[in-house]
């Protein structure tokens, strides 16, 4: 009995040492003097791990701290960049590239790296040092997904039961007979939902899965770009890009101000079989209601109360939530643990009003539920106090990842800057 206590005492000492060494490691890394141009809460600091990596969509960090960046445009024919900090200063000294496809989604689970093109999902074995065993030995686990240009990026996340979840965005704004065309009615039922506008679930250990072998896990989601498996709740969470152009398509029902502020961008906690309602509804965070879409008989007043799930959290319109991450680390203060970070790519559909977004948001969670208030966590990516036109933004946040020491990594898909945010007080 005494022996057991001794061992447990020893192991707590070991854990304590490990914690101390982890935090010392974070202390050793010097942030940039200007915090990489970011504005952060007190006690946080940032540095640029790398610049000009290429248009980086999502990122994954392995146990050794190497960053895998999924590129939206090929860099000398390659679509994944690997960034390594070889001298421990927090900045990447080496960059190598592999994979001959563009895309958005990338994730590490167990000893595998998963990456998505705009049509497929691939899997690569990792060795003990977190490196790809054979860059040319990609196993195609999913193939033949819809890619029609609009909303074609595929994001991925994995659960703990051998499944990968893939968003398949709808190649449409509101499922009109003629996309984005004034006076064109919504198709009933929306035929797009058969193969897009939802989340599909596939097995990680089966090759060449298609729509026929996959499971439509959730539907009625126009275009999800941020998705993450919440390990605390063992549940899928997604962030949806709400529809555009209420004013342009229905000027009599929505003025330019209302159209700039609606509909909400939404985060959903997803259960298998859920329907979030696109294209038939949109969410209005001012009213806290699901509204009937004007293409389906809505008038800005009619609500829909049954059938479709409610968002876990709603945000101002058009800000484009592109990255979602539930924080599990110990480096940040306790209130951040199990809360959600969301990378907002930034709006374009608020014109003539100034654009919004272009920042990373934190959503505090208590007892597995969001507290209901979100806060801007990291701002300044755009390099402008106000972004009037999207092309003026110097950087746009897109992907999020947590490092082994609990640092938060943010990718930018304009210039390919990788930011690392640390807590240092």
């Amino acid at each position: 009995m005494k022996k057991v206590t001794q061992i447990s005492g020893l192991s707590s000492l070991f854990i304590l040492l490990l914690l101390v060494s982890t935090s010392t490691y974070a202390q050793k890394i010097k942030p940039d003097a200007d915090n990489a141009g970011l504005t952060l809460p007190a006690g946080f600091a940032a540095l640029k791990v790398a610049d000009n990596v290429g248009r980086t969509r999502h990122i994954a960090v392995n146990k050794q701290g190497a960053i895998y960046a999924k590129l939206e445009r090929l860099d000398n024919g390659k679509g994944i960049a690997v960034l390594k900090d070889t001298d421990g200063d927090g900045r990447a000294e080496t960059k190598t590239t592999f994979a001959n496809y563009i895309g958005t989604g990338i994730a590490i689970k167990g000893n595998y790296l998963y990456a998505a093109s705009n049509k497929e999902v691939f899997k690569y074995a990792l060795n003990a040092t977190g490196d790809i065993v054979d860059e040319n030995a990609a196993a195609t686990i999913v193939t033949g997904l819809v890619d029609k240009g609009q909303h074609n990026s595929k994001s991925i996340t994995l659960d703990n039961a051998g499944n990968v979840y893939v968003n398949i965005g709808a190649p449409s704004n509101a499922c009109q007979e003629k996309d984005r065309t004034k006076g064109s009615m919504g198709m009933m039922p929306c035929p797009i939902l058969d193969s897009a506008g939802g989340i599909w679930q596939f097995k990680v250990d089966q090759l060449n899965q298609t729509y026929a072998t996959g499971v439509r896990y959730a539907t009625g989601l126009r275009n999800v770009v941020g998705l993450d498996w919440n390990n605390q709740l063992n549940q899928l969470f997604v962030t949806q890009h709400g529809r555009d152009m209420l004013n342009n398509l229905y000027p009599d029902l929505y003025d330019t101000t209302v159209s700039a502020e609606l509909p909400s961008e939404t985060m959903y906690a997803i259960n298998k079989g859920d329907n979030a309602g696109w294209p038939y509804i949109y969410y209005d965070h001012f009213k806290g209601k699901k509204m009937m879409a004007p293409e389906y008989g809505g008038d800005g007043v009619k609500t829909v109360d049954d059938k479709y799930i409610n968002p876990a959290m709603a945000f101002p319109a058009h800000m484009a939530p592109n990255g979602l991450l539930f924080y599990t680390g110990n480096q940040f203060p306790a209130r951040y643990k199990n809360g959600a970070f969301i990378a907002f790519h930034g709006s374009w559909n608020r014109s003539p009003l100034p654009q919004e977004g272009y920042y990373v948001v934190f959503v505090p969670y208590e007892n597995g539920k969001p507290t209901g208030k979100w806060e801007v966590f990291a701002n300044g990516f755009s390099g402008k106090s106000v972004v009037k036109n999207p092309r003026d933004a110097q950087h746009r946040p897109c992907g999020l990842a947590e490092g082994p020491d609990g640092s938060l990594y943010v990718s930018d898909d304009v210039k390919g800057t990788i930011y690392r945010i640390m807590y240092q007080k």
Partner: protein
Amino acid sequence: MQRIFIVFVFVFFFVAGASAQTNNKVVAASIARGKTVYLQRCMVCHQADGGGVPKLNAPLDASTAVNGSDISKLIKYIVKGLNDRIEIDGEFYANAMPAAADLTDQQIADVLTFIRSNWSNKAAAVTVAQVKQTRSKLK
């Protein structure tokens, strides 16, 4: 003789100047009307600065196609919309462009004249006759 020549030159410049002035006025009016059309129908995607949205909606400012001589192509984009994924100045844009076939020939001429002369663009005005001719072939 010399006097007659001077009078002739004077008259010539007066007439030419007056017609250029009239023409300027016509173009200015077209630009003003075109701006109204632009704000209602184009700006939401192509933005107030004509810069478009990177990777989604094509820029009109400093675009080679917009400033080019193939005006019929521009007219066709407005009348028929654009669903094909096309490369513009080395970039691809993902969003579909809706057809604006409800616009009149005059409105199309006006909005193109506005677009081609606004921001850093300095291309020639588009006339109603040009729109009419292209449109008749599209139907």
